[in-house]
């Protein structure tokens, strides 16, 4: 029982980790807390559900379309909304991303309806049984995707010029600009990456929990909780934080009461913000920098 709860915590945690990753990338590039990040995940799920269930598109194509759609939305959000307010105070930026979140939510409701929709499991991968603990096929997919996404991001940020340029632009915007790195471009890239990751994560989650146009708020908050728990701005911490939040939730719903699982992770977010703003993990990274 306990191990089973841990496994499902890890699976959900992987999704939160992806949410936190997108959030972290945007924060690192622009120092903006993107309150619309959860909407990428909502959109990913709803898009996939719409395409697969209604338009009978094959699942792989649907996933790619969901990723592309969310990437596009991310690009529009950065170029159309946030670029216009780069020097605004935090309240303005917060309200801009919240406004964008509302608009996206409303647009999803208009386009795909206000009903909960379902996506079939991706299949292919087997259901794994280890002793009396079983890992669902979709769970395996999610774990694999997180590993692939993390590895890809690690490669991009540490091995490619593009990634190095984005890191430079976040740490020393002025110096980076002098080297020909355009902050507007890196900001748009970051938002496109966040959109893609969010869309992918949302698509992966859709078969496990239904796609619904109001999912974004809570998914977003979970992503914040994960990113903050891992130390804001630290990608590795974001993944670890995601797993942590997933585990805490899973344990709460397994051993306390399932209704309170959301409250527990939000309380965790508040406590970490107040008591350990540097994050629960990621201390070493903060010191090194």
């Amino acid at each position, binding site marked *: 029982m306990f191990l089973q709860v841990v496994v499902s915590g890890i699976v959900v945690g992987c999704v939160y980790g992806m949410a936190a990753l997108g959030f972290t990338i945007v924060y690192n590039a622009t120092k903006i807390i993107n309150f619309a990040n959860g909407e990428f995940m909502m959109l990913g799920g709803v898009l996939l559900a719409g395409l697969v269930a209604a338009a009978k598109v094959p699942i792989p194509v649907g996933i790619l379309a969901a990723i592309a759609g969310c990437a596009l939305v991310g690009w529009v959000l950065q170029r159309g909304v946030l670029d216009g307010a780069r020097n605004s105070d*935090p309240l303005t930026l*917060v309200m801009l991303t*919240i406004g964008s979140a*509302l608009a996206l939510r*409303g647009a999803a409701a208009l386009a795909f309806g206000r009903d909960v929709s379902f996506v079939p499991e991706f299949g292919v991968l087997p259901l794994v049984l280890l002793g009396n603990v079983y890992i669902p096929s979709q769970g395996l997919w999610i774990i694999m995707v997180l590993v692939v996404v993390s590895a890809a991001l690690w490669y991009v940020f540490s091995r490619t010029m593009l990634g190095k340029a984005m890191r430079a632009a976040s740490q020393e915007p002025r110096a980076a600009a002098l080297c020909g790195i355009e902050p507007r471009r890196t900001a748009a890239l970051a938002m496109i990456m966040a959109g893609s990751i969010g869309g992918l994560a949302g698509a992966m989650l859709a078969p496990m929990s239904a796609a619904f146009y109001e999912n974004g708020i809570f998914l977003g*908050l979970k992503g914040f909780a994960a990113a903050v728990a891992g130390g804001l701005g630290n990608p590795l911490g974001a993944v670890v934080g995601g797993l942590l939040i997933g585990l805490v939730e899973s344990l709460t719903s397994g051993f306390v009461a399932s209704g309170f699982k*959301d409250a527990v992770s939000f309380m965790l977010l508040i406590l970490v913000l*107040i008591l350990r703003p540097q994050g629960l993990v990621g201390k070493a990274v903060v010191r090194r920098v």
Partner: protein
Amino acid sequence: MTLHKTSRLRRDWQILALVAALLALVEFCVSSQFHRSVIILSMIHSVAAVGLTLLVGYAGQVSLGHGAFVGIGAYTVAFCLQRLGLPVVFALAAAVVLPGILGFLIARPILRLSGHNLALGTLALGAVFYVVAAQVRDVTGGLDPGIVDLPSMAFAGLAHERVVFWLSIFALCLAAAIAASIVDGRFGRGLMILRSSELVAECIGMNTARAKSMIFAVSASLAGLSGGLLALYLRSFNASAFGVGLSIELLMMVIVGSLSTIWGAMFGSFAIIVLPNLLEGFDQAKQVVYGVAMILIMLFAPNGLGETLFRVFTFRRKSA
């Protein structure tokens, strides 16, 4: 000395009297049940928005969780009426006092945050309240059925809606009077200094930690009063009324109105509540329109739509 208005309080009272008279007139004239309900809801939300203006606009502390205090106020009234059998006046008083105390206690830790961390923290706080309210069914009735069948306010021959209308006028005037007194006094000036710099506020002798807690408590009290009235008016409601959406709407009312005067909050509440109800078929596209409007306002009128319109208007008049 006469050149410079040392106190806007007198003018604020004049505006308040005007608003009260106008609302009373509306009460006598409006016959449509629908219009009446829209105006009542606007007034009720105004009460919370006025309080939030003090916190966000004057003290510069953003809250994305004030929907929780509205909810606490609503459940307090329900609990007092249904379980304790208290008279309405006491129930409303409790709906002011309890959120105020809770707000004061929560403020100290939560207002150690600032900027976007404060936005995140208060958003999470509001979400926690929603989840808890949906779960603690013993008190709240959860999402289904929630609170049902609070007593009608019909009194001395006046129908329920009319009594609530008068109660709302009274509450709104009370909220505005309180806010005006705070804003125009030394505490309000201290808050405005605080908004620009906590350091300066400390160094002129303001206990900033306490001041922030107090203004948070005041805004929580007014949110509670708003929730209490909402409960009285609706008579049946559930936790979904007090989710993150309400908190965002309240903040929007403040921003749509003005961050720097309490009158903006009234404008904002009426705009947010009335407009969707006037536009036919608006409900379908409500969130999109809200979202886009919010983006446009933040991009082009970050001081508040009401204030920007007012400025444009007065500027035109002066230059003409």
